[in-house]
């Protein structure tokens, strides 16, 4: 299966994401620079990595969301191509309007970098089929702006439609309802602050992230 990792100036988890995808699929994803206006033909998965695209200027993800490649990403997402945004990638997806809400400065103002306990809130999605409903997992976070906020109506809708994929089991950054990751209404776009690509093999100390890629690739293969 063909996949692409989008690379912005300031992305810094793009290579980790490439390694994770290659580990699970056996095929290296194409690394697509933000100035490209088209994605490789026949793409089956788009991944938007963590980092500090454009130095987090203006707002985290704001500049990246307006870069040429994101028009192609939006168009592909509209056709149902799965899009996975991790950390800064989640911020880019909200700024691009592909996911609702916004990610604000952590309530404690500190950069948080540690493994966090998560609950799988929806194990039926394209991205979470390899987890059990309500399963407790641990995946590292590393962010300054992970405080997910949306109006009450949006939050209720996300909860009601099973679009909260992951929830923090403890307060990590002040996120509304401790939301760690959400899915779009069509079910093919996931944004999450924790880094599953950093929990792939025993040397990482934990493999809870690996099943996200395995489940996703099984679903799209």
């Amino acid at each position, binding site marked *: 299966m063909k996949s692409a990792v989008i690379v912005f100036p300031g992305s810094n988890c793009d290579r980790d994401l490439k390694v994770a995808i290659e580990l699970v699929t056996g095929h290296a994803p194409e690394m697509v620079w933000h100035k490209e206006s088209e994605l490789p033909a026949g793409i089956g998965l788009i991944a938007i990595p963590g980092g500090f695209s454009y130095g987090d200027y203006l707002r985290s993800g*704001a500049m990246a969301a*307006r870069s040429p490649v994101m028009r192609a990403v939006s168009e592909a997402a509209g056709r149902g191509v799965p899009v996975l945004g991790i950390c800064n990638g989640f911020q880019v997806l909200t700024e691009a309007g592909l996911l609702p809400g*916004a990610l*604000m*400065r952590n309530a404690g*103002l500190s950069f948080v970098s540690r493994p966090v306990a998560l609950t799988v809130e929806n194990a039926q999605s394209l991205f979470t089929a390899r987890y059990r409903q309500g399963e407790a997992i641990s995946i590292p976070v590393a962010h300054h702006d992970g*405080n997910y*906020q949306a109006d009450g109506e949006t939050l209720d809708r996300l909860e009601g439609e099973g679009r909260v994929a992951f929830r923090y089991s403890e307060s990590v950054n*002040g996120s509304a309802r401790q939301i760690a990751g959400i899915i779009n209404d069509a079910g093919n776009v996931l944004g999450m602050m924790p880094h599953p690509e950093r929990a792939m093999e025993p040397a990482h100390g934990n493999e809870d992230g690996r099943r996200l890629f395995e489940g996703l690739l099984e679903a799209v293969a």
Partner: protein
Amino acid sequence: MKARVFVTLKPGVLDPQGKAIHHALEGLGFGGVQDVRAGKLIELDLADGTSDDEIADMCRKLLANTVIENFRIERLENA
């Protein structure tokens, strides 16, 4: 022509930075500060004749995230 765009968090949106500034002011002994909200000021140098609508469009499309922020435009006609 110049314009200033003030971007502020919507009322009710928690402002951790404003809160930290508030605490710091209190720490310096400034009493009587009820609340602090931090925002951004963006100065634009524009072609003459740029309309308010165009500037508002810039705000909606990039300068402000209207999910969480409001914006206010101030034109400086003689600048």
